[in-house]
Every structure is written in C-alpha cells, then in structure tokens.
C-alpha cells in the first residue's frame, strides 16, 4: 500500500484507509439501481424514434395493448403540460417544457432515439415485443446535424417557439448568445508580433458510464411515490420528477442506489417520472432500465463544437489579445455548456484585450447533458493548441510561456473578478520539475506535449448529521451520492474532528426524507461543500458533547477544551474524558447527541491541472500510442490521496479517449451508427499507460480544511496535450477531435504529398 501523504497536522486526513463501502462492492453485494427487485414488479421499455427530425402524426397503441402481459402504455399526452420558461429547480436551471418533451416527445421527435412511448409488462421481453407493436405515423423532416447547418439562413427549424433576445421574434436554432469583452482587441492585435488564427472542430462525445440509466418507481394509492434509481442527485430527481409529473415535491421520496458512473450524465432525469406514472397506472412497482444503445442514442452526450480562436503575442512572450468565436451543439433542446466554455477558454492566462462570443445551437442530436467540466475540454483543445504554437513562435518552452502569462492571486478572471489564492503557477511548476518532463524522449515519430486546464468548481447546498452512538463511535449521514469514494472522505473528516479512528465512523448516503436538502454530486463539490457541512456538523457534535462533559464535571463549558479525542478541564483538575466514556453518560445528561449542519457553500476554490503526454505515431497506420502520461493538479488539501489520484487518472483517461477515438457517427439521415461500445471506442486497459499523478496542495482559503474540488479539471488538458505531442512527433497540427487514425492519416498523407511536390519542384 502506498505511503500516506499526511503532512503532520492531521491524524486521519491525508491517510489512505480502505473505503467503508468497499467490501460490499468487491463482493458484488452493493445494490445498484438495476439490482432492485420488488414483489409483483413490472418491467418497462421505451419506443424510440428512428428518425432524427419528424412530426408525429399519429400513435396507435391497439396491437401493443392487446399483447398478453402488457399492463399499461403511456405517451407524451399522459404528461401534464409544462411551462416554457427557465426555472430554478433545486440549484439547477431547467426549462420544464423542454425537459418533459425530452422525456416523452409531444408533437415532434428531434433525434434518432427520442422517446415516444413507455410500456409496462410482466417481463422485459414482453415489453420489448409490445414496443415493436406500437404503430407511429411520421412526417419525416430534413435533419440538421451540425452547428453550421443549423446557423445557415433558411435552415430547417427544430423548435418553432424558440427565440433568442437578439433576433427578436424570428424563428431560429440559436438559443443563446454569450459575450465577454475587455479592453481593445484591435489595438491589442496591432501591438502583437505574432498572431495565430485557427478553426477547431470537436466531435460530440458521451460520458460513457458503464452502468445504463435505471429507475424503479412505486406509486401508492395515497399519492406518495418512491423512486429507486442510480443518480448523482436524489434531490434533483425528486424536484425534476415532481415538475414533469405535475405533483408536489413532498409527495416523492427518492432513494439513491449505488451508482455505476455519472460524470454529469446522471444529474438529470429520463426514466424516473415514467416509472412513477406507469406504477400509478398499474398499481405495481415498475422498473425501467436502458440498454447501451438507448444510452448512446438518447442520453446527454456533451456538445460537439466549432471554435475559432485568434491570439496575438509580443515577441517577449506576452499574450496581448485574444478573440474567440464558439458554437456548441445543444442537441435537441437548448442548454449546451457554451457559457462555461467561454469563461474557461483562456482562464489560466492574464490577457488585457479579449472578446469571446459563444453560441448555444440546437441540432437534431440528443439533448446534451453535463460531462465533467462541461464546455471546458472543447475550449482548451482550441486555446491550448494555439498557446503551444505561440510559445514556439516566441522561442519559449511551452511551460515557461504559460507561466509568464499565468494567473495568480489577484489576477482578473475572464469575467473580471480577481482570483483569490490559486495554484496555476504551482501546478505548471510541478510538471516542469517532474521526472517525466526532465527525461529525454528519443526515437522516431515520437513527441511530447503539454497543456493546462481550468475549472471553476461549485459550492451549492449540502446537509450533514453526525450521530454519536452509545459506544462512542459515530455515523455521518449526508445526501451526496458516492460516485468516486467520497463517503470515505466524509468519514475521515468526521473522524479527524472527533478524534476517532476512521474505522469508528460509519458514513451513510441517505434518501431525500432522511437528510436535509443536498445538491447534486457534481461540480467537484462533494468533498468541498458536503465536506464543509460534515466538518461543521462534527463541530456541532463536539459543542454539544462539551456541554455534557460540563454537566458531568459540574463546571462551565468554557472551562473545557476538546483535543486529541478527549475532553480536558482547562484547570487541569480532572483526568481527560474520551468520547467513548462520555457516550455512556448521554442518557443521564440530556439524551442522544446529533450534530447537524447545512450549508450553501461559499469560498469555492477553482482548480487547475497540467497534463504531460509522450506519444508515438505509427507512420503506416497513424495510430497514436501513448507512451507516458503525467498529470499535476491542485487539490487544495487531499483528504484521501488515493481517491484524489483516482479522480486525476479517471479524468485523464476520459480526456485521452476524447482526444484519440471517441465520437458520434451520424449518417446523412441523422441516424446514429455507433450505438455500441465496440464502435463508440473508449480507452481499454491496453490503450493506456500508467497515469502518473502529482497532487499539488495550495490550500483554498475559503474552506476550513483548504479543500478544492478535484473531480473535473483533469479531463480538460488531455486533448490539447495529445495534439501538441502529435505536432512534436510528426509536425502536424491537428485541429479536430478525435485525432483518430483516419483523420491523422489524411493529414499525414497531405503533408507527405506537399513535401514530395516541393522536393520534385526542387529537382
């Protein structure tokens, strides 16, 4: 087992205990959403559109309903009408009208795989047969598959009631325009010695969680419903399902199952309200589980994008101006992460003159959902490639160029407010001083590339309770579903505050009735915000325990100090009393102790990462082999270093897949052609090297333990790092992802042809 990174201040924080839920997971006992079964349970399946863009003229359920074993079928008509406006739902901004239509289409289908009807039957095979018996008449419309096609004048319109502020009452596919401006870019570019202007295209990619979406809905005749599902946010499932079903939030209880990956894709809802509605109609629990094909066709991937960047620098290596135009695919309904992309694209650098225009564009693809640092990876692919080119032009080492322009405490962000204490410089220096960076890379067709990334991280709301048991052990209850081992960190923080061994603290992820409101597990916020609530709840327990100790000793609470896991009388006149001992006296001193806290967390610390990658390009197949990879990331304070490393490695692996092979293939009819994991090609064990991690700790001044979110930023640099490495290997600047063999080979052949033509001309 690896050595602890305990810095000496802490007894538990910084160590690497075995996670409390680990044994159940390695034994196959842990219950994920699809593992739930109830007596009399029915199984549901969905009918999905085969067309990318069509009007639904009629739906005939007769034959399907007649199949023995079919108990109910619902369509979009069975969902209540929702309002067409942006609303606050928990902490998410959501348009219930679009959300409802995405769950079951109303009059139009807007992507291959768009759900139209849901069937409940006695077994999943009968449900599938019934789906095939539903008859739908479509009026097929021309599909609009790219931002270029969608933004062209005269493009077919997807949503006839969509308007954006700038085009007045005109029908459009552009849902939103964001703009950020500072200084004077014309003057800036005039003063530049080098200007680089390029256009980038990134393909749509999926979060790729191994576990498909699932939900079991149980509706009772008294109007109370329970949903069991794998989700990143039980409270969001509750509020969003309530909106879609038109019932009160308080009538739904959501029990989060263990979750098999989310990465942002399970922060919204698809099956949950349908499982409840089908249960209402049949009087039985109803389970819906997606197939892999449905996951890829119909659940949020992240946007493909077109990004044009122009950047200028003076020959001493100062970036003086940047201009960006970016259009992101929102999918069928508005809501791409272009706003975030626009705010991230040059976030690590101090640039006086900038203008960034970002467009959210609807296309006939699945409605996009959040994917680990949404919007930032697309943006960094463009900007970090250009930064590399500029560094080259200025004759500077790529890390030195970044360090020269890099943001520090007090630097203005793209949107203006100055950064508090951040670790961009330290993260770059960690890579610069790494053994990997210092090592020589030799051999033909080999190259090294580096890139950096930024993510804001989120705060939001969390609640926690800490219960002291009669034997002096404790449990800590939170509402943050555990997608990466976070419950261990919650136990560790509690143990640290209470002075207990971590094995004496049991962490629990609770349902929506058993814990106060807790926002989604995402935004790299759990260790930060839920950890903050846990820290405060544990402190609250100590405060109450101190009052009890005061009673026992018949002195005042302010005469007592808690340290090293025990209560001490400041006067020194009593032997210290451990929690274990005090716990025996709780009943006689006032009853049980529960420490509690709720936060709407402030003091968020943004995260930076820097990724270094060595590649080898096969000159005959254009396959890119990953030779070596190192990531440095500022974690603020690593509570459980193994799981922090895990987040760094996982995000890196996803970024590498995004860089090299992952993309959605649509044909000219708008049908998705790679609906399985063979052809939606994610990295396997054989594709990746060991991923070396360097945890940088520049404590976040806003958090009691210095924590910064770590879950997301690691996915941001890899595509640009790989592009830069490919350039140094074979002299080609790739400007589209994925940089898969067919695409790279095309460029390599072009280059060879140009070189041959040149040398032929020279002869």
């Amino acid at each position, binding site marked *: 087992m690896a050595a602890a990174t305990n810095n000496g201040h802490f007894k538990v924080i910084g160590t690497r205990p075995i996670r409390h839920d680990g044994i159940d997971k390695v034994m196959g006992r842990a219950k994920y959403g699809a593992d739930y079964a109830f007596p009399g349970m029915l199984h549901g399946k969905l009918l999905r559109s085969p067309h990318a863009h069509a009007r639904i003229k009629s739906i005939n359920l007769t034959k399907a309903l007649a199949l023995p074993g079919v108990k109910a079928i619902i369509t979009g008509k069975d969902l209540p009408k929702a309002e067409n406006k942006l609303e606050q739902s*928990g902490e998410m*901004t959501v348009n219930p009208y679009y959300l409802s239509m995405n769950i079951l289409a109303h009059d139009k289908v807007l992507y291959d795989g768009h759900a139209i009807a849901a069937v409940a039957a006695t077994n999943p095979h009968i449900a599938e047969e019934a789906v095939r018996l539903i008859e739908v008449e479509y009026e097929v419309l021309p599909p609009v598959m790219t931002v270029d096609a969608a933004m062209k004048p005269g493009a077919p319109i997807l949503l006839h009631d969509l308007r954006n502020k700038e085009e007045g009452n005109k029908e459009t596919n552009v849902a939103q*325009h964001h*703009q950020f401006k*500072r200084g004077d870019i014309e003057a800036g570019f005039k003063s530049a010695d080098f200007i680089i202007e390029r256009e980038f295209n990134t393909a749509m990619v999926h979060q790729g969680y191994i576990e498909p979406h699932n939900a079991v809905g149980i509706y009772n005749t008294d109007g109370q419903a329970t949903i069991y599902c794998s989700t990143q946010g039980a409270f969001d499932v509750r509020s969003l399902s309530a909106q879609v079903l038109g019932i009160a939030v308080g009538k739904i209880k959501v029990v989060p199952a263990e979750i098999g990956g989310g990465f942002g894709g399970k922060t919204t809802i698809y099956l949950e309200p349908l499982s409840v509605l089908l249960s209402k109609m049949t009087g039985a629990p109803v389970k819906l589980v997606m197939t892999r094909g449905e996951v890829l066709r119909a659940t949020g991937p992240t946007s493909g994008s077109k990004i044009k960047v122009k950047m200028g620098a003076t020959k001493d290596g100062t970036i003086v101006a940047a201009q960006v135009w970016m259009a992101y695919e929102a999918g069928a309904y508005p*809501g791409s992460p272009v706003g975030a992309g626009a705010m991230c694209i040059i976030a690590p650098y101090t640039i006086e003159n900038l203008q960034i225009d970002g467009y959210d564009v609807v296309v006939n693809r699945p409605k996009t959902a959040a994917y680990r640092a949404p919007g930032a990876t697309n943006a960094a692919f463009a900007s970090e490639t250009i930064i590399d080119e500029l560094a080259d032009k200025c004759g500077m080492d790529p890390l030195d160029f970044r360090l020269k322009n890099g943001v520090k405490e007090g630097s203005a962000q793209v949107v203006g*407010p100055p950064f508090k204490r951040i670790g961009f410089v330290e993260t770059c220096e960690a890579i610069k001083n790494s053994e990997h960076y210092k090592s020589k890379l030799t051999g033909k067709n080999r190259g090294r590339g580096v890139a950096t990334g930024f993510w804001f991280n989120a705060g939001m709301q969390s609640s926690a309770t800490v219960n002291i048991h009669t034997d002096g052990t404790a449990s800590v209850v939170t509402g943050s579903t555990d997608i990466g081992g976070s419950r261990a960190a919650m136990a560790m923080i509690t143990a640290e505050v209470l002075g207990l061994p971590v094995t004496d603290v049991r962490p629990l992820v609770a349902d929506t009735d058993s814990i106060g409101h807790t926002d989604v597990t*995402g935004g790299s916020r759990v260790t930060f915000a839920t950890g903050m609530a846990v820290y405060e709840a544990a402190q609250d327990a100590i405060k109450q325990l101190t009052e009890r100790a005061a009673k026992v000793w018949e002195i005042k609470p302010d005469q007592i100090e808690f340290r090293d896991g025990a209560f001490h009388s400041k006067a020194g006149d009593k032997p210290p009393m451990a929690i274990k001992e005090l716990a025996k006296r709780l009943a006689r001193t006032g009853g049980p102790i529960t420490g509690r806290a709720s936060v709407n967390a402030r003091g968020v610390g943004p995260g930076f990462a820097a990724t270094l990658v060595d590649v080898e390009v096969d000159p005959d197949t254009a396959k890119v082999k990953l030779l070596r990879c190192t990531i440095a990331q500022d974690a603020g304070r690593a509570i459980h270093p193994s799981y922090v490393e895990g987040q760094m490695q996982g995000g890196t692996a996803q970024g590498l897949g995004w860089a090299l092979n992952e993309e959605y293939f649509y044909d000219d009819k708008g049908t998705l052609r790679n609906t399985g994991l063979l052809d939606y090609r994610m990295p396997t064990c054989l594709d990746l090297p060991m991923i070396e991690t360097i945890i940088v700790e520049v404590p976040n001044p806003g958090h009691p333990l210095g924590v910064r979110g770590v879950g*997301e930023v690691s996915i941001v640099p890899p595509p640009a790092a790989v592009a830069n490495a490919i350039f140094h290997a074979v002299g080609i600047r790739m400007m589209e992802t994925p940089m898969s063999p067919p695409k790279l080979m095309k460029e390599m052949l072009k280059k060879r042809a140009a070189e041959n033509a040149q040398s032929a001309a020279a002869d």
Partner: protein
Amino acid sequence: MLPDGAGPIRSGSGFFPMPTAIIPALLRKLTAGRERVAVKGGTVREIVADLERQFPGLANHLLDAGEIKPSIAISIDGEIVPGGVLEPVGENSEVHFLPALSGGA
C-alpha cells in the same frame, strides 16, 4: 452620471466608497458602452434598482418577477454568491452578472 471606471467619487470631504457593477458585454448597448458603473445600494436588489434608474430597461434583463433570473449567477468580489436579490453588497464591492452554469459535473 458618473465617469466610466468610477469607483469612489471625490467630494469636498473625501471619498464615498460605492460598489461597482460590471455590465455584461451584450447589455452595454443599454449603458452607452460602459463596462463599469458605480452604483448605490447595500443589497443586490438596491443596486439593480439603481442601475434601472441610471439606465431604464436594464433591470428587465436581470430580473424575473423580482428575483435574479435563473440563467444569471451573481459574483461579488470574485465569489459566486447564492442569495440573489437579498445578497448584501459591500461598499467597495465589485458585482458581476455571469451566465449561470448548469448544476452538475
């Protein structure tokens, strides 16, 4: 009207600190191109009301039924704050109106 880029204004007896609102790029057409505007108020509600006084029609882009629009996040002195119109604003604070990032990973 106050000069562009103003923060504290000079008066006979010294400086009166005033918060500064940073106007989003696409709304600067309503503020005659000004990016930084000194505003009066101790809460977000008060400074938005002051912005409306200085530039009629601006509040419509920021508020929905009296609360900050769900699509807008408020950042005060570099930190995203959750209090909406109730959020207190300090004398020297910088207030930014940003696109809200959707909750989630």
